[in-house]
């Protein structure tokens, strides 16, 4: 249903959706409306993810192979969310973004949020999780050149992504609880979330340190061998 034929249209969508559409919908939905319109945000960001998806996976023969690799990465994220205390999802998303491109990173992040929440509880926060993890993967894809060159930079990106994830999710917590944005509540929410934030940042750094080089080797090998 969502197949976009024209190549120009696809590249326009690729640029507009992640950078303009999704953030503006989220911010406008959260701030401009004085009432809570999170369902609209949820639907809009999910739909934008779908658009991006169809824009990236248009070419059929390579499309299927890339799709399956994305599914493999999502399955690994899924299994990873069951590990207690450590959270490898963001690290795996970053790896997918680095080696398979920004769109693949976005898909791995957002779809694993969607899928794992069928076990961890689906809700309006799903959209925010999809957005947060998706953007982490997307930026990893965009910044892949410098990040792949210097390992320290990659680890720093991982730590920053962990912090950013926590900050984004707490904006959502406050907005849901309170109509409109309240700085004091936000700081309180950030305070209670400190253990989680630390766990996100630490597990990102740890898993990127351990997994990124061997994982990249394997993905590169597959890319060269099968021309994905």
């Amino acid at each position, binding site marked *: 249903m*969502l197949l976009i034929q024209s190549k120009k249209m696809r590249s326009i969508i690729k640029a507009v959706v992640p950078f303009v559409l999704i953030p503006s919908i989220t911010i406008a939905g959260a701030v401009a409306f004085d009432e809570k319109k999170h369902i609209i945000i949820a639907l809009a960001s999910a739909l934008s993810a779908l658009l991006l*998806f169809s824009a990236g*996976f248009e070419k059929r023969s390579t499309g299927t192979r890339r799709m399956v690799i994305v599914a493999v990465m999502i399955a690994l994220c899924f299994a990873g969310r069951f590990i207690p205390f450590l959270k490898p999802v963001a690290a795996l998303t970053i790896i997918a973004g680095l080696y398979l491109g920004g769109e693949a990173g976005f898909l791995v992040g957002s779809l694993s949020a969607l899928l794992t929440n069928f076990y961890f*509880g689906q809700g309006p926060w799903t959209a925010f999780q999809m957005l947060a993890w998706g953007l982490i993967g997307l930026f990893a894809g965009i910044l892949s050149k410098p990040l792949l060159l210097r390992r320290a930079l990659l680890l720093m990106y991982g730590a920053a992504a962990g912090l950013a994830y926590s900050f984004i999710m707490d904006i959502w917590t406050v907005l849901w*609880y309170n109509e409109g944005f309240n700085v004091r509540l936000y700081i309180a929410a950030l305070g209670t979330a400190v253990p989680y934030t630390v766990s996100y940042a630490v597990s990102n750094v740890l898993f990127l340190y351990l997994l990124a080089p061997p994982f990249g080797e394997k993905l590169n090998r597959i890319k060269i061998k099968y021309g994905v």
Partner: protein
Amino acid sequence: MKSFAEYNPIVITVWFFSVTGVAMFCSYPLLMLISLCGAVIFFLMRNGLSHGREHLFFFILFLILALANPLVSHNGKTVLFVMNHNPVTLEATLYGVNSAAMIIGVLYWLRSFTQIMTSEKLLYITGALSPKLSLVLSMALRFVPLFSRQSAKINNAQIAMGLYKDDNIIDDIKGRSRVFSILITWALENGIITADSMEARGFGACRRTQLRRFRFSARDTAFLILTLLLLTVTAAAAGAKSLSFVFYPSITAEKPDLLGIAGLITYGLLILLPVIIETEVSLRWKYLRSGI
């Protein structure tokens, strides 16, 4: 005759989004009360008295959420008492209780939703939107048990070859990371083979089909139309500010006009729909059994 969970997934999704959507957009206290009670009754109706832990968790969360607001926010006129030089106001407390009722109500609804919407139904819905997306999701779901089985196999093979023992921590970690590395290589190669095999069998040649068929029967249509009708009235009432309730600086509740009352009634009916269906089904079942 079919129970609520057997209705078409699209119909169920529309119903759940209507119920939770109204509860999240409109913060009218009476509506929150209806939503919370309805959600708890619906959950109890489906699960009986099990899941005691979940109820306890929700109850504690309710208390935390209700108490968080008056401790952080000091708006409102009526000061109840002063704690650490900060006034705790009646309005902020009630606001916290209202927000907590909304959140816990929605959490209960979503708990039931997660129970009813199995992954198969999810694939049915996403398949209607984008077949490729649906495929990625269904493959990822299928990979999870496959990978865990394969990693057990690799693990056994490694131990049988005497490559590691799990009584030494460092050895154990090293061995497990080797198993993980082997698993990744295998998973990627296996994925490519799967993709090629799918292509060879004509993947993408036509629409994706489902293992189970979800028909759209007359009952589904009736339920969908009823849901949308009730939602329209409730949404109109909420949108036209008939159900407005101001907490700060002091509580001012206007008496709901005709539209507001109608909105409350239709929302109650909307929530009762599945209860009515389940009652009808069980009554009919009893009647049929008595006839044997």
